[in-house]
Every structure is written in structure tokens, then in C-alpha cells.
């Protein structure tokens, strides 16, 4: 169980990036955070990953306070951040130094197979496409079998087609070991495709504005009315979090318009 207990972050220059964030993420849950730019969602992720510990409150994983990167927590960044001097297979195995060579090889082989890049094992990172590189990054983060995987807008630099492909891929991989996923995105569709729970954040200081359960059955159909229903809720919450006039029909209207047969 990952718990954020009144987490706050004040930068040395006095900027309050986060304030009073409390939430509990169950093992295997997929929590997706969205919000306007500067709402502290990346800062929140960095406190969870241990890269930038909070200045107030604590992040706790299974009873242990997280104040530095932890072996049970993996991280995927917006860019693949592969090490250019290591071939793809060595990049995937980067976090497995402490394991014997044979074990490392089977794990890396399995992971590459799982992301469909077995034939790229001996290739340099510069020879990969953006989507392939991000798949390698995902394999690298998952191969030490973390309990929690933190993802900071992992697909935002990819084209729409590759992005949809990788979202499905991520869900596939998640189904193997069911790590807890904590992810930030600015793509509402992506949030609804992936999330068990969507957390809308609000800026100045960054805090939780609204939480939306998203219990659509998987695999999720982007064209379904139910998907659209959740999307309208999320968009409306986003609008409110930004103090904008709500630009989408809100919950009640959607429900009325969609008729009775919508509930899941």
C-alpha cells in the first residue's frame, strides 16, 4: 500500500508546489493524475519516486517512509532516457547488476520479448524509434519487478498511433505482475483508458481537487458511451479546477442525454 500523508513541497525559493496531499493507492491500482500545467503533478510524482522528497508530510510504502529512490519503486520519464553507450539489452538490464549473469540474461530476454523488441537486443539506442525507445525504458523499469511504477507523462512525446499502442502495451505488462501504477498525463483519453482512479489536481499550491473513480471494464472501448460519460466528467472537473466556465455538458445532462442503459 502506497500512502501519501499530508505531503507538501516548498522549494528553497519559497514556491509552494504541493500542499496537503493525502491519498492511499492500493496494491495493483492504477492512479492517473491530470491537471493544468504547474499544478504540481510532476512534483508529486517525484516525491513518490524518492527523487525529490517532500518537505512536509511523508510518502510511505508498506510502512517504510520514502525519502530516497527505493528498490520497490521504478520510474519512467517523459523521455526514454536510455544510456546511449549501452546496447538495448544492457539498458534493460541496467538495474539488475546485483543478480548473477544467467538470471540477468533470462530476465532481460523475457522483458524484451514482452515488449516485442527481441530482435533489437544488440542495437544501440540511437537506432530506435521514439516508441521503441520508450518500450525499452518501460522494460528497464519493470525488469527489477517494482511494486510501484511511477510514470511521468510517459507517452506525451509520441504520435497518437504509437501512444495508443503503448497504452495497450503498458496494460498488458501491468497485468503480468500487477504493480501499482502512479502516472501523470495531460491526455484525458489516456487517463480514462488506463486508470482505476483519476485524480484532478489544482495549482497554487498543488493539491488534490477531485477524484473520479473509473471502473469501466477492460479492455476499454474509446468509442463507447460509457467512456464518453467518464470523459465528460473528467473534462468538467478539469474546467472547474482551472476556474473556467464548464465547457462540456456536466454529469446530470450527460446521464439524461445518454438515456437509462448506460450504467455499469
Amino acid at each position: 500500500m502506497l500512502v501519501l500523508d499530508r505531503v507538501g513541497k516548498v522549494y528553497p525559493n519559497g514556491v509552494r508546489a504541493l500542499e496537503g496531499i493525502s491519498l492511499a493507492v492500493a496494491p495493483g491500482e492504477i492512479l492517473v493524475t491530470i491537471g493544468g500545467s504547474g499544478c504540481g503533478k510532476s512534483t508529486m510524482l517525484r516525491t513518490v519516486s524518492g527523487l525529490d522528497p517532500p518537505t512536509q508530510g511523508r510518502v510511505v510504502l508498506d510502512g517504510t517512509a520514502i525519502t530516497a529512490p527505493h528498490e520497490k519503486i521504478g520510474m519512467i520519464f517523459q523521455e526514454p532516457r536510455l544510456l546511449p553507450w549501452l546496447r538495448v539489452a544492457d539498458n534493460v538490464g541496467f538495474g539488475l547488476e546485483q543478480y548473477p549473469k544467467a538470471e540477468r540474461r533470462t530476465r532481460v530476454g523475457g522483458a524484451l520479448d514482452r515488449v516485442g523488441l527481441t530482435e533489437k537486443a544488440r542495437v544501440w539506442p540511437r537506432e530506435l524509434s521514439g516508441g521503441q525507445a520508450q518500450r525499452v525504458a518501460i522494460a528497464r523499469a519493470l525488469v527489477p519487478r517494482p511494486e510501484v511504477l511511477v510514470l511521468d507523462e510517459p507517452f506525451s512525446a509520441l504520435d497518437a498511433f504509437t501512444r495508443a499502442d503503448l497504452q495497450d502495451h503498458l496494460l498488458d505488462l501491468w497485468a503480468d505482475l500487477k504493480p501499482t501504477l502512479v502516472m501523470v498525463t495531460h491526455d484525458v483519453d489516456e487517463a480514462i483508458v488506463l486508470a482505476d482512479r483519476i485524480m484532478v489536481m489544482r495549482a497554487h499550491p498543488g493539491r488534490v481537487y477531485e477524484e473520479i473513480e473509473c471502473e469501466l471494464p477492460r479492455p476499454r472501448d474509446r468509442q463507447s458511451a460509457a467512456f464518453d460519460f467518464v470523459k465528460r466528467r473528467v473534462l468538467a472537473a478539469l474546467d472547474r479546477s482551472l476556474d473556467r466556465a464548464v465547457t462540456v455538458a456536466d454529469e446530470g445532462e450527460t446521464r439524461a442525454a445518454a438515456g437509462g442503459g448506460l450504467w455499469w
Partner: protein
Amino acid sequence: MTAGVEQAGVPEATSKAGRARVLRPALGLLLPVGLAVLWEMAVRMGLSNGRLVPPPSVIWNTFSDLAATGELQRHALATLWRVAWGFVFGVMAGTIFGAITGYSALTHRIVDPTLQALRSIPSIAWVPLFILWFGIFEASKIILIAVGVFFPVYLGVMGAVMSVDRKIVEVGRVFRLSGLAMVRRILLPAVMPAYVIALRAGLGLGWMFVVAAEFLGASTGLGFLLIDGQQLGKPAQIVAAIVAFAILGKTTDWLIVAVSSPFLRWEDRFART
């Protein structure tokens, strides 16, 4: 890498690539060889007596005479020896200081201004002092060369360490690398390309400084051959020594490139020579 891609193409393209690989280095020989041939012809046709600028054939004769007596090898070896030691010491000091000042902001603030000030001193200005301190034999020469090698290596290493991508370092942190592992697995490979360039620049200066060192009281070395040729009025000997410098300089530079290239094959470079 590019060659590999080309080879995968149609056979026609392969042979064209093969021919290009042979011809491309030859292109660089066109200018010097052409000029040498022209000068040789000019002297043979009596357009010039070639006394101050001897034609290639005379230089070649001088060169082979010197080589036959073993003189050339003796002098070249003496020079090579000095450069090698100066290079080793200069690289060691430059690497250590560069790595520390690049890594630690505090040390950078304390040490770097002094070193930058020392760098701006024309290095030949050190010679009298070095001779007073270290005598007129090998020590002062090697130290002068080491000083020449030090600065480009220091600057290169410092700059490279300072500009290691924070994002890549963060990957190391996520995988909880200890300080030493961070250096070995992230920082060292990241600075490799810049380090090789720094070594090459340092070696170039080493060759420059060895001449300066040998001008000032040496009885051996290619620099001594230069001075000797001037004092005895033997321009062919001077040019022969210059040619020897060129060959040695180019060879040692190529050695650095050859030794380092297996470590740098991952580089995503614009130009592949």
C-alpha cells in the same frame, strides 16, 4: 555503422561504397603530393636552385641518410620519450583536477580561477624558471610538456563532467547507484567522447612544447635537429625533422583515435570519417 547500412543495400551501391572508402582518404593526399611534385619539377627545370627550400628528392635523401646512420631514430626516440612522459603526467594531473573541479562546485570556485590565470601565461615563459628549478636535463623538459598537456585535458574533463546530462544522472539515482557506481556506470562513459577530444588536444600541445623544450639546450631530439640544421645551414635536415614531427604527431593522434573508437561506437554523430 553507415557502411553496414550501405552494405545491406543493392550490390551496385556496395561496390560504389567500397570504392568511396578507398578513394576518400586518397583525396586528402592530392594537395600535398601535387605541391611536392610541382616543386620537384620546378627545381629540376632550373626555375629555382632549391637551396632554401630543398626539393622532395633532396629531403628524402637527407631523411634516409639520417635514418641509415641511426641518427634519426635516436633523435626521434628521445623526443618521443619526452612527449610520452610529459603526456602521461599532464593527462594524470589534468584528469584529476578536471574531474574534481567539474564535480564539486566549491572546489571549482576555489581552484579554477587560479588555474585559468596560470593558463593565460605563455608557457614558454616558464622555461627559465623550470631550468632554474629542475635543471637543464630531462626533468625540466618533461615538466614543460606536462604543463602544455595539462590545460586542454583539464578544461576538457571539467567541461565534460559539468555538462553531463542531469536526466541521465537521475536514471542512475532511480536505480540507486552508489557514488562510485555512478562514476563508473554513468559519469565515465558520458564524458568519454569529450575526454578523447581533450586527450588529442593535449597531445597536440605536447608535440608543440617538446620543440620549445628542445630548442633550449638539448643535445638530442628532433628539436635539436632543427636547431642544428639552422646553425649549420642545412635546410634539408630541418625539413626532414619537420616531416618526422608530422609523421609522429599524426601517428600518435591516430593511436588515440584507434584505441578509443571501440568505446565510442555508440555515439550518434553527424560526421563519420
